[in-house]
């Protein structure tokens, strides 16, 4: 009924006792997420938010059997935190941290190729499976349970899409914020593959933005392998070339980076692309009716 995380996931928080970690961990616990502990080097043995704190991810995994980690570690130490989690056997690593140097992420990406772990992010809102687990910083109440998978590079635009989907009478299986950095762990295509293989997901909303070729790659994969309706939107049709628009990866360098070019490829691959971000929910609802 979902991908990546559910009510049985055992979640630890890296950077547990910091301001961000504390705030969002308590929100996650309040949502009903199964947070089993946290990691802050040097604070092992203490309790925080009524959960045990460990010095290392390895210790946390040994004691709690954790299989998911969410990272709120500052940018200078975040790449190390990701590798530590993968090394300790964590299967799903969600990195919220914004502003990790690209040079630090290059070896992380390489390391993860041979590790048995999936990284979501960095610089992302996280993952939520409504009524199961919120492993992220999104406002949980917007996401009602249902059959639509959402994959997006952006935070608030994900909330916008989820809200529209819910208001259109549908619900969400899982929403994945893959992040807006130049190097990210899970691509749009990989997220789409997860949803296409999830029996409980019946439709997919795919939200991208200018820069890179993740959406084009996903679109080509959908054309060849897709079996569920997909609604797509690309933010930044009006963004000027050569300027970074907030997200480090959101920059038009060449012709193929533009929203127009991406939308064309997506349409050519059979995705229902909306030009207005206000039409995401309604369009999904209409597609679901047609496919019902």
């Amino acid at each position, binding site marked *: 009924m979902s991908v990546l995380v559910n009510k049985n996931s055992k979640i630890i928080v890296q950077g547990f006792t910091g301001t961000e970690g504390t705030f969002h961990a308590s*929100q996650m616990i309040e949502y009903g997420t199964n947070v089993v502990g946290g990691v802050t080097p040097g604070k092992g043995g203490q309790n925080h938010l009524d959960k045990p704190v460990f010095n290392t991810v390895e210790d946390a995994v040994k004691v709690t059997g954790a299989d998911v980690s969410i990272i709120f570690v500052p*940018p*200078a130490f975040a790449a190390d935190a990701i590798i530590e989690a993968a090394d300790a056997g964590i299967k799903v690593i969600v990195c919220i941290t914004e*502003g*990790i*140097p*690209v*040079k630090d*992420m*290059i*070896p992380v*990406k*390489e390391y993860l190729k041979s590790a048995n772990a999936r990284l979501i992010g960095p610089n992302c809102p996280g993952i939520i499976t409504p009524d199961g687990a919120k492993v992220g*910083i*999104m*406002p949980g*109440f*917007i996401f009602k349970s249902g059959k639509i998978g959402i994959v*997006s*590079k*952006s*935070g*608030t*635009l*994900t*909330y*916008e899409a989820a*809200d*529209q989907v819910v*208001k259109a009478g549908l619900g969400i299986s899982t929403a994945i914020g893959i992040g*807006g950095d*130049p*190097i990210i762990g899970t691509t749009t295509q990989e997220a789409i593959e997860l949803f296409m293989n999830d029996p409980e997901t019946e439709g997919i909303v795919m*939200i991208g*933005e*200018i*820069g*890179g*070729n993740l959406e084009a790659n996903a679109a080509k994969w959908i054309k060849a392998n897709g079996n569920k309706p997909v609604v797509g*939107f690309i*933010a*930044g*049709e*009006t*963004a*000027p070339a050569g*300027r970074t*628009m*907030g*997200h*480090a*990866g*959101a920059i038009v360098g*060449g012709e193929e980076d533009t*929203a127009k070019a991406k939308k064309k490829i997506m349409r050519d691959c059979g995705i229902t692309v909306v*030009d*207005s*971000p*206000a*039409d995401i929910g309604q369009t999904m609802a209409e597609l679901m009716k047609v496919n019902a």
Partner: protein
Amino acid sequence: MNIHEYQGKSLLKKYGVAIQEGVVADNPEQAVEAAKEVNRLTGSEWFVVKAQIHAGGRGKGIVTETGSHGVVLAKGLDKVHDIAKGILGGHLVTKQTKAEGKLVNKVLIAQDVYYPGEVQPEEFYMSVLMNRETGRNIIMYSPEGGMDIEAVAEKTPELIFKEEIDPKIGLQGFQARRIAFNLGLSGEAFKQMVKFVFALYAAYEGTDAAMFEINPVLKTSDNKIIAVDSKVSIDESALFRHKDIAEMRDISEEDPVEVEAKKAGLNYVNLDGNVGCMVNGAGLAMATMDIIKLSGGEPANFLDVGGTADAERVEKAFRMILKDDKVEAILVNIFGGIVRCDRVAQGVVDAYKNIGDINVPIIVRLQGTNAEEAKKLIDDSGLKVHSAVLLKEAADKVKEVLA
């Protein structure tokens, strides 16, 4: 963060890359002294006077006030003063600048490297950057140097080569040799190029650069390989560990409003349109710009107020947008999650009252946590603010006020 040619060259030199030597100057008198210094260092009797601005196409570019080009060869020390005078303090317009051009505050007085000799000089292109497709660094190069690389990519894509670096082992000798061979080099020039490639890659890695572009890389008439130009961009996220490079930031090259925004913790990009916007989140901000266009307007800016949009930030953001007199309407689009919409609404009301004379219509769309309370707060405030809850309603209101 972009830096100037002379700054990029200083980084290159630090990592052992052979460069066209030069000395930077602020005024024509200094330019003459700089030329004397370059003569002492290199023996060069001709000099190249190069405008230092953050934009390409300087050689073909024209200084509005004087008609001078942005890069000029001085065939003798006695020519340097007047050439520098024709460039400094003027506005250089190139195909990469806006129509009003960029003010030139500094010129680089560089040695002439196209001196005659035993072989013909040759120009190549080389850049180092990260390939987003693979998440690895690549060295991109071409025997077609000295010209616009995008034009080369379009007309003769077979003349653009790429060498991908495996992060596990780094740049390998055979890769540097392959580059030198593909550029048609042999003998001393071949050896020099291998050395050049290694030093250039070390500079890129060592400075946490997002890009090093050298165009042209020159094979001189005596078989030296040197960087004649440098276009360098540094990863802003890594500046915390490069204090020396962070100090190279030239804020006179940046939009003053954007600099001010950054200080206030706002992410702002100035655009040319007539509808300002204020949004939380980069993706939603871009989407809001798109909505403005679809409603018949043009976005005047990109503005992400971030995850903690409190009253103070909202007011700062308003003041920033209102500085732009092309703005005919403002769309505020906040999706409240952890941020409560009623607090943002209060911020809008306070800002409106504090600023006093806002003469453009404002559309406020607040959705998410406490959205209904927020709408009520705005509606009851008696201000000339249009409120909306759904994105569609906001789009329609923009259409209405522009009509």
